[in-house]
């Protein structure tokens, strides 16, 4: 149980087999031996706060907190709660954390896809603050994620995912937001690769060209895994975008 971030960081650097322990839900499924599991649960990283220009979510905030907190429910058309509510079950979400999800940057991640469309920034103890998009493209980082900051500029947003069954991993997820200037940010995840933005579709949406956006989102790279094939995902991407646009119109 780390007593401070500095202590946690020193322990992390001490051995290649040290690992940060957040919810531990994913970590325990791995086969890598762990010499030190560094528990962050008593460092006060479990708060959600609204500042003048962003919503700041601590790395140890659980997915359940994200789902129930009044601030996350009210902000960004409620897409943060929507994005996590199909993840396994209530008990699971009471322990799994946002930090664990973001740091691990799983391809299938629902919250990462939602955060990318909200232009979130991630804050590391040593490396400081960076764009989530930059982090997703960067090589592995040996550092401690302390919080996620989301600018309050999004006016409307929608999160969509397709799953074979309610609590399964997503076949595809898509998240769209529009800011006060009418500019769109669109991300597509579980392709099955990591979530990425579709800038061509964003430009089309900014000029009101819905058909162009639906075409563009199909052009992202999609892959095949046990849940679906690349072609299927390509088709579903434009369906999810249509649904997101419908929801935002309403």
């Amino acid at each position, binding site marked *: *149980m780390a007593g401070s971030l500095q202590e946690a960081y020193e322990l992390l650097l001490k051995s290649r087999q040290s690992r940060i*322990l957040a*919810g*531990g*839900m994913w970590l*325990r*499924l791995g086969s890598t031996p*762990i010499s030190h*599991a560094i*528990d962050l*649960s008593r460092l006060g990283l479990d708060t959600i706060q609204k500042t003048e220009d962003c919503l700041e979510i601590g790395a140890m905030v659980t997915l*359940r907190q994200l789902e129930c907190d009044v601030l996350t429910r009210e902000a960004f058309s409620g897409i943060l709660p929507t994005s996590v*509510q*199909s993840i*396994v*079950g*209530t*008990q*699971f979400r*009471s*322990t799994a954390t946002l930090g664990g999800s973001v740091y691990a940057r799983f391809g299938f991640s629902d919250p990462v896809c939602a955060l990318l469309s909200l232009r979130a920034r991630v804050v590391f103890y040593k490396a400081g603050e960076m764009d989530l998009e930059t982090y997703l493209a960067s090589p592995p980082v040996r550092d401690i994620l302390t919080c996620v900051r989301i600018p309050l500029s999004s006016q409307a947003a929608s999160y969509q995912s397709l799953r074979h069954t*309610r*609590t399964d991993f997503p076949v595809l997820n898509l998240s769209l937001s529009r800011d006060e200037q009418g500019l769109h940010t669109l991300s597509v995840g579980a392709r099955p690769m990591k979530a990425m933005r579709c800038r061509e579709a964003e430009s089309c949406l900014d000029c009101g060209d819905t058909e162009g956006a639906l075409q563009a989102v199909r052009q992202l790279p999609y892959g095949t895994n046990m849940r679906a094939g690349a072609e299927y995902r390509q088709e579903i991407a434009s369906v999810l975008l249509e649904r997101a646009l419908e929801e935002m119109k309403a």
Partner: protein
Amino acid sequence: MTLTFTLNGRKMSQEISPDESLLSVLRRCGCYSVRSGCDTSNCGICTVWVDGHAILSCSYPAPRAEGRSVTTMEGVRDEAQDLMTFLAEEGADQCGFCSPGFIMSVLAMLRELKDPTVDEMEQYLSGNLCRCTGYNSQHRAIVKLLEKRRDEHHV
């Protein structure tokens, strides 16, 4: 290491290994209602409460329970009585393997939501898998329990 925690209202000290799960410690303490199903955080069978929140004990590191209050089915027998009766009446307790975890989740839901809608109920309980019942009988049992509670409230 020594884990000191409250189990079903009683202070306990137990020798544990640092990488042990709460599930394994609870079974060592004689709480056999706590069972392992998938052991990969998927099925909800190992559900217990830590400080009143339902969690999956198969994935909860035991050292994290230090100083906390843990509740298992053994600690809520009275509160669970009506629900167990309705589950039996509706045929929702078949092999019974999933029942303790399911009951802990339903009771947690009723403490949190008081009078949930069917949608809220399905959403809240979606992490409790059952291989026998097909869920309808479980849902009927909860609806009956809610009706009973409403009636008692109006009397």
